[in-house]
């Protein structure tokens, strides 16, 4: 029976992987124009709180909240992105990390709205809403041999998988277009890119804002999957986790941060049986990575070996 095969715990880990992949994509897209932003956790918090507050206080549908969360994060991304243009490399990283901390402190102290460090609970959950909806339309999970909670987690995972496929498709298409070429040109040589007529201000802010939108989007989804958020969810640790997705998986290609996010979410879960040592092993894996494969697990030569990408050749020419 289908129902016996589905373990809600695995499904939930799968959902976290999907959300973390979106966060991995957010850092990838800012990196693709040569900007190292550690603000992802801060933007994630903005998206999560925006969506949670809108759905709790104004009874808006979750989908409206999620879109609003992503947009608010994007707008703040533009506001942070413009002054940050003067900063490059590690200076930008520090500034954006600072922004993330400011956001967290802000969420802790704006108690009248955010309930401070206690956090928000009772956020409408995607799964529950779906269950309610299916019941209203006369569908019972039992009819396909699933318990309610199995059905809920399965549907959430399914939705997140679809969202991820669409996002990855979007970003791959963008990479192969004029905009993607402009990002890559800026990453490789900003002065030369400018001399080729690329408005670097526009494209850098664009990629920064896209990263912020993705982080905000992931944060909003996180809120509606968990049902509970607190400022600690969007702290410095989260920013570092997201950075590791790109560093571990590889930041040159989109599959790098996707792989990194999936692997780094899975690893602590898989190692759960040696609970006391799992972060030790986690740390060891990272140290070994930096020593032996600093460009990350997945890079262009590896993809070529696996024949996952045509030799840089005709991409786009057959469109």
């Amino acid at each position, binding site marked *: 029976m289908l129902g016996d095969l589905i373990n809600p715990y695995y499904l939930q880990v799968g959902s976290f992987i999907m959300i973390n992949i979106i966060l991995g994509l957010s850092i990838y897209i800012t990196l693709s124009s040569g900007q190292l932003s550690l603000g992802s956790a801060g933007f994630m918090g903005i998206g999560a709180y925006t969506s949670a507050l809108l759905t709790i206080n104004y009874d808006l549908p979750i989908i409206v909240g999620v879109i609003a969360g992503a947009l608010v994060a994007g707008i703040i991304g533009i506001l942070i992105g413009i002054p940050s243009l003067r900063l490059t490399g590690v200076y930008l990283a520090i500034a954006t990390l600072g922004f993330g901390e400011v956001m967290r402190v802000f969420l802790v102290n704006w108690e009248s709205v955010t309930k401070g460090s206690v956090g928000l609970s009772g956020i409408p959950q995607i799964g529950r809403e779906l269950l309610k909806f299916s019941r209203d339309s006369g569908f019972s999970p039992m009819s396909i041999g699933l318990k309610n909670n199995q059905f809920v987690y399965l549907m959430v995972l399914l939705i997140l998988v679809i969202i991820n496929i669409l996002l990855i498709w979007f970003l791959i298409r963008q990479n192969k277009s*004029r*905009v993607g*070429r402009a990002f*890559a*040109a800026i990453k*490789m040589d900003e*002065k030369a890119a400018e*001399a080729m007529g690329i408005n670097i201000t526009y494209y850098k802010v*664009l990629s920064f804002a896209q990263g912020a939108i993705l982080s905000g989007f992931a944060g909003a989804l996180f809120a509606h999957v968990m049902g509970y958020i607190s400022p600690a969810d969007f702290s410095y640790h989260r920013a570092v986790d997201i950075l590791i997705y790109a560093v571990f998986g590889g930041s040159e290609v989109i599959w790098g941060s996707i792989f990194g996010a999936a692997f780094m979410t899975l690893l602590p879960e898989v190692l759960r049986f040696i609970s006391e040592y799992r972060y030790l092993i986690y740390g060891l894996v990272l140290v070994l990575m930096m020593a032996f494969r600093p460009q990350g697990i997945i890079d262009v030569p590896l993809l070529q070996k696996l024949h996952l990408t045509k030799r*840089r050749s005709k991409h786009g020419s057959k469109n």
Partner: protein
Amino acid sequence: MVLKINNVSKNFGGISALTDISFSINKGEIFGLIGPNGAGKTTMFNCITSIFPPSSGEILFLDENITGIKPHKITNKGICRTFQNIRLFSQMSVLENVLVGGHSQSHSGVFSGVFRTKSQRNEEEKLRSTARELLELVGLSEFEDAVAENLAYGQQRRLEIARALASDPKLLLLDEPAAGMNDTETADLYYLIKKVQERGVTTLLIEHDMPLVMRLCDRITVLNFGKKLAEGTPEEIQNNQEVIEAYLGSEGDDDIA
């Protein structure tokens, strides 16, 4: 008149890299800018392309004042350059480099690029065919899929020219295109620049290879220590006493101009 430089000066702190330079370039000309190392030739290029604007003076392009506007706008107006120290997008393929060069000739944004609208597909197709045509012009057709940094030095220089031409410039600025080239490559470069001239592109050339400059250029301006030393046809320049002294040095004279 394509380009007119009016009394341009550029100071870095207390050092004046360019002092009161004026010259103008006619349509279709190959105009040489020569001078000993440190004479301010590349600084002149950087002023024209607004990498840093001049401290005083003005630069007119097709009778329009372009002094100090953003570098990417300069390219959009029809001035494109190559770099003395090659600055290709080294990890991109040869073709992609030229496609980036065509940035100012295309307009598609995020959504038309992602959803591949009809106009975006036409635009890409046009960019690609122009890029392939330019690669053929510079003799790099067979390398279109190669990664730029794997090209030989002379090929990289020619790729830079193709990339600059992709922006469909009216004025092309070449910064020492023959540097590091052997005799055969330099000979090829001569014909390439001539072919570019036939396309109706005006060229401003910085070059140290004197035989090449003298054969190519219609007119030449000589800079020395940031000042204009002479201007004229190749014959006039070759016979100019001050120019000869600047290059070969003269006894007890350190303020020539």
